[in-house]
């Protein structure tokens, strides 16, 4: 099976993506060979802590990384049968906003304070779909309705600061899906929101996914949120995917020690007064990635071979993949 044929099956197929940043304090290895496969209609969560490379991945798909300090060493990002990395800037720009939409974490900061919401929605419609202003405005109204703000002209004419946090996030979603993109990248869209709002926004995203037959790449550090919304989950650590599985596979039977420890560190109200199972140490800086398995300095199970070589990605059945030498030999006890 050629790479081309395999790529056809997936909406987004990231193969062996390796990205570095040249910085003053050294070379930052942001992504060290990342593989992610996402199908249409699938919500794929990319889970990781800060500094693990999840945002770099999303920015790279969008082509928003500044390429002087950034450099793609190898890899392919195959989207709708084309390798995005082979396209020139103008072609990539045409994909952005039209075929791939993106929503961000803090809508207050990610919306332009000087322009009305309506204008910020219609500009995509006018640029990409060549709509005339009047049609675009009506279309924008429909979009607002879709995201739960009603056919509200007042909102169209409002400035971002006049809306509440939840409304701003919905407006941002309307902007991102305006051109009915095939893929939606959501970078921590609910992290800055209240709990009750989180749920509403997550439900909204799922509804829109159904309606437009989109794929969603959902980036988060919050395992609880991921459990709500994801079909498949990839866990990223220090620029590499260390485990990839369906939601039930990951939560019922986590294979990689990092995943397991992450799940165990979540507070449990029945264990009040007991210390939490914290993972010692911190996520390594991209300039200082440990040799071999990047998790080995913090791993309670680590052996010599973990330092000497990078563990390969192995499929343990039904598409549940993990990269660790010790799976099946040593276990973290609950």
């Amino acid at each position, binding site marked *: 099976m050629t790479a081309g044929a395999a790529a056809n099956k997936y909406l987004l197929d990231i193969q062996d993506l390796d990205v570095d940043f040249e910085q003053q304090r050294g070379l930052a290895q942001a992504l060290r060979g990342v593989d992610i496969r996402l199908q249409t209609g699938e919500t794929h969560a990319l889970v990781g*802590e800060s500094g693990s490379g999840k945002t770099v991945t999303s920015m790279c798909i969008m082509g928003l990384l500044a390429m002087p300090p950034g450099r793609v060493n190898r890899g392919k990002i195959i989207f709708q049968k084309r390798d995005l990395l082979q396209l020139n800037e103008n072609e990539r720009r045409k994909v952005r906003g039209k075929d791939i939409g993106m929503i961000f974490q803090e809508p207050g900061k990610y919306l332009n304070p000087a322009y009305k919401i309506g204008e910020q929605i219609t500009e995509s419609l006018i640029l990409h779909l060549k709509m005339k202003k009047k049609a675009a405005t009506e279309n924008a109204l429909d979009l607002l309705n879709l995201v739960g703000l009603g056919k509200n002209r007042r909102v169209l004419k409002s400035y971002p600061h006049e809306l*509440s946090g*939840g409304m701003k996030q919905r407006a941002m979603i309307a902007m991102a899906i305006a051109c009915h993109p095939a893929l939606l990248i959501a970078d921590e869209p609910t992290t800055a929101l209240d709990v009750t709002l989180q749920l509403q926004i997550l*439900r909204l995203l799922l509804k829109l996914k159904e309606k437009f037959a989109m794929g969603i790449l959902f980036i988060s550090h919050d395992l609880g949120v991921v459990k709500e919304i994801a079909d498949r989950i990839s866990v990223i650590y220090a620029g590499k995917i260390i485990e990839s599985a369906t939601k039930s596979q990951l939560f019922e039977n986590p294979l990689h020690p990092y995943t397991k420890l992450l799940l165990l560190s979540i507070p449990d109200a029945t264990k*009040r007064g007991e210390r939490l199972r914290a993972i010692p140490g911190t996520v390594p800086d991209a300039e200082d990635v440990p040799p071999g398995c990047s998790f080995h300095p913090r791993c309670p199970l680590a052996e010599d071979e973990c330092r000497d070589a990078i563990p390969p990605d192995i499929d343990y059945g039904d598409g549940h993949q993990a990269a660790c030498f010790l799976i099946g030999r040593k276990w973290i006890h609950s």
Partner: protein
Amino acid sequence: MDPFIEIKNLVKDFYGRGLLNRRKLAVRAVDRVSFDIHRNTVFGLVGESGCGKTTLVRSILYLDPPTSGEIRIDGTSLGNLSSHQLRSFRKRMQIVFQDPNSALNPKMRIEDSLAEGLVNRRFPAAERDRRIKRLLDLVGIATTHRSRFPHEFSGGQKQRIVIARALCMEPDFLVLDEPVSNLDVSIQAQIINLLLDLKKELALTYLFISHDLNLVGYFSDRLAVMYQGRLVELASADEIMRNPCHPYTRKLFSSMPGKNTAIGEAEDDDENANLESSDGKIAALSAACCTYADECPIGDRQCKTDEPELMEIADGHRIACFKA
């Protein structure tokens, strides 16, 4: 034994300017809040943005004195103190905020940030030095890093330094306002463990505020749920986690990510009015009704005309609701 901290009928109003520039009540941010905190326990406070928890905290610490009500710490009522006495009393209560970046002066080395608190107490340099070492040890920061600047540390480390600084006054009472919300999951656990250890070692009392119901339920001994300036439920953490009674508490629980079984099956409520709910809404005035009545699934006429008081429904479990 008397509770260490007693809050009685705390009210905080904010005024605007009405006609002819007269003072006009604009918002009642804290509406007759009462609760007690016992020594060496953790009292948790849960609420969403705009519920008034930050204002409540500022009032308790007397950073923004309350409009009315009483705050007693160890038997002493803060309202009775002169400003000089208040200043020395303040040393006993410290606060740790959510964002370590804004809490630490980026231009000061961390040993200087820590020394600030100690200098004011007139310690000789050698003693100051010893205390700084001890504080850094307590929170798990290598003393060899004492001359570094905040930006040279990670988020979790910065938060540890902020905690160390709060401790240099040797307080009894620590207010923790979302202390781990900005941190990664694995670091959160480390900081929570640190706080647990410190509580044991230094016999501290905590007021722990968070939007993470799971975390508060785990960390606290007693727990209160706040909505639009009022406490709607108050009980031991165990009780609330097992048996939440107030409709709002139940809504918070059901909204907790990870607890939902079938998210797709829920009603299509995001089409309409729910967008305004709990979304930064502030109570316009102290309405003589249940402030949750508008969204409450079990509310009725009585809820809109009468104000429910916090009443005991079981041993130590109080809720403010007519219907539960």
